[in-house]
């Protein structure tokens, strides 16, 4: 019975991991940029939700949209103003650039909000949900459901909307898309902004579960890395699967070996996976 409970905990965590990673994966897949800023974006989203709750009494579930919108604007400006200038440069250049931007953003948050851990204490928590023999905290389940809904929304956006098709076209072949009349720099900026939106929204959802501090940025970034490599790049279903797999694995390894070993084990797993299947569980071989 205990295993059922652990698996359920893992799935709830995994749904949130998927939401953390899906924006990162989109940016990586479409722009070929590893966005080191992603972790700080998530933290910034959490702060938006925190301040909205403390000062305005807005429930974090509602501030997912606010946090997402704030991050969308920031992401659009960063991509259109800075990253687009070197978007065709080698990996090393774009990676180092986002690393530099992350140092600036993270340091600014440290100065503005301090490194003290903040947390959102809901005035009316949702209590516990019981499904058969499994007990789950209601707020976590609601956050996970919202995270999955957001991820599905992104999936529909990429498949059905005009802008979504343009993003997919750029992902497949930048030059060809440009020749077909797609405004590639604008699509780059929109893609990066959507990635930032997802990070901000995920941050708002996480604000009711994890303590909030700029120090958590690298932690979230690491999760996004692992989920992406697990699931394969740039695909929403891949990020979903990767997130759920990571959540369940972490949940079980914490149970068997203790939580402090869970991170090491997920890293080891990642190295092994990179070695045997670099394109991820759902990825196609030879597709960079």
């Amino acid at each position, binding site marked *: 019975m205990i295993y059922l409970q652990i698996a359920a905990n893992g799935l709830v965590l995994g749904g949130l991991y998927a939401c953390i990673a899906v924006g990162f994966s989109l940016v*990586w897949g479409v722009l*070929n940029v*590893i966005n080191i800023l992603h972790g700080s974006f998530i933290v910034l989203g959490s702060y938006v939700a925190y301040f909205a709750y403390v000062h305005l009494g807005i429930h974090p579930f509602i501030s997912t949209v606010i946090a997402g919108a704030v991050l969308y604007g920031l992401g659009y400006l960063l991509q259109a103003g*800075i990253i687009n*200038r*070197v978007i065709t*440069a*080698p*990996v*090393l*250049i774009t*990676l*180092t*650039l986002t*690393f*530099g*931007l*992350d*140092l*600036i953003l*993270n*340091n*600014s948050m*440290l*100065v503005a909000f301090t490194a003290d851990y903040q947390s959102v204490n809901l005035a009316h928590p949702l209590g516990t949900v019981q499904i058969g023999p499994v007990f789950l905290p209601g707020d976590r389940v609601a956050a996970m459901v919202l995270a999955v809904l957001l991820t599905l929304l992104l999936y529909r956006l990429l498949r059905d909307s005009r802008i979504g098709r343009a993003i997919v076209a750029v992902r497949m072949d930048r030059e060809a898309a440009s020749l077909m009349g797609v405004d590639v720099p604008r699509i780059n900026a929109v893609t990066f902004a959507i990635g930032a939106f997802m990070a901000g929204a995920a941050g708002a959802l996480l604000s009711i579960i994890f303590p909030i501090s700029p120090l958590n940025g690298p932690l979230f970034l*690491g999760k996004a*890395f692992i989920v992406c*490599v697990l699931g394969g790049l740039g695909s929403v279903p891949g990020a979903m699967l990767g997130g759920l797999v990571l959540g369940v694995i972490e949940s079980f390894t914490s149970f068997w070996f203790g939580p402090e*070993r869970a*991170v*090491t084990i997920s*890293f*080891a797993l*990642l*190295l092994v996976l*990179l*070695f045997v299947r*670099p394109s991820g569980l759902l990825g196609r071989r030879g597709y*960079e």
Partner: protein
Amino acid sequence: MRTWIALAVIAALVALLPLSGSNYFLRLATTVCMYAVLAQSWNFIGGLAGYPSFATAAFFGLGAYTSALMLAQGAPLLLSWGCAGLVATVFAAMIGGAILHLRGHYFAIASLIVAEMLRELINGMPDITGGGKGMNLPILPISVTAEAQFFFYSMLALAVVSAATAIVVHRNKLGFGLRCIQQNEDAANILGVNAYAYKTAAFSLSAVFVGVAGAIYASWVKYIEPPDVFDVLLAVKPMVMVLLGGLGTIFGPALGAVILLAFEELVWRNFLTVHAAALGIIIVALILFLPNGILSTLRTWFSRKEPAT
């Protein structure tokens, strides 16, 4: 030949620094030499072969801990430094065999994770390595000034050896092959460059001096702990230094080391709480305005002026 003379002159000038008598300068100079070693080493794999390696921190920490563990068993100092270099090289050759078939971002992440894994492993062995408590190293039985000079000259010697190796590699078949790999690995493979062997060689070269530098650093500061010697900034700073100085050049990495350290000192002293943001601003400005590094930017300026005169 001119390159060798330039190296000899620079080394001789730097070697005179202790005459200034200021211990502060001596400490800075030792750090500059260490940074130059890290940058020069990263240049083999990152600058020449074009593989964005984050493994510098892994080699550094591995060297530091190898040397610390041997010294704790009573091994002689120089032997422990040599073994640190050897262990780092063997480790690089082994791990390189596993991750060098990855390209671009995947290689970057895999090399980053190698350092994280090593840190977690050492953290998780408190009986041998002290775990999170860190390790203390023995103090040398000589005066404080003599000790500071000893570590300075050790770091300087290592920097000179790494620069000399870079000069040799840049000119022989290995350097040529690595540049081919950077431009088009598939084409290089087809034309008969054994890309796998070349990359592994470059990766090992990027480890050997870093391992020794980690060992010297450990003996110098006398106390090491995993977050310090496996710090991800140890992997990022060499990249910034090489980008500052110029990718794939010989004196670029050393120049970048001097500039970065000078800047760091200024910022640390005046704006302690925002030093990370200041480093970030340099990185962004560097990539937007000096994408080819200072050396080649200066060169284009001069060559642009020449026809006018």
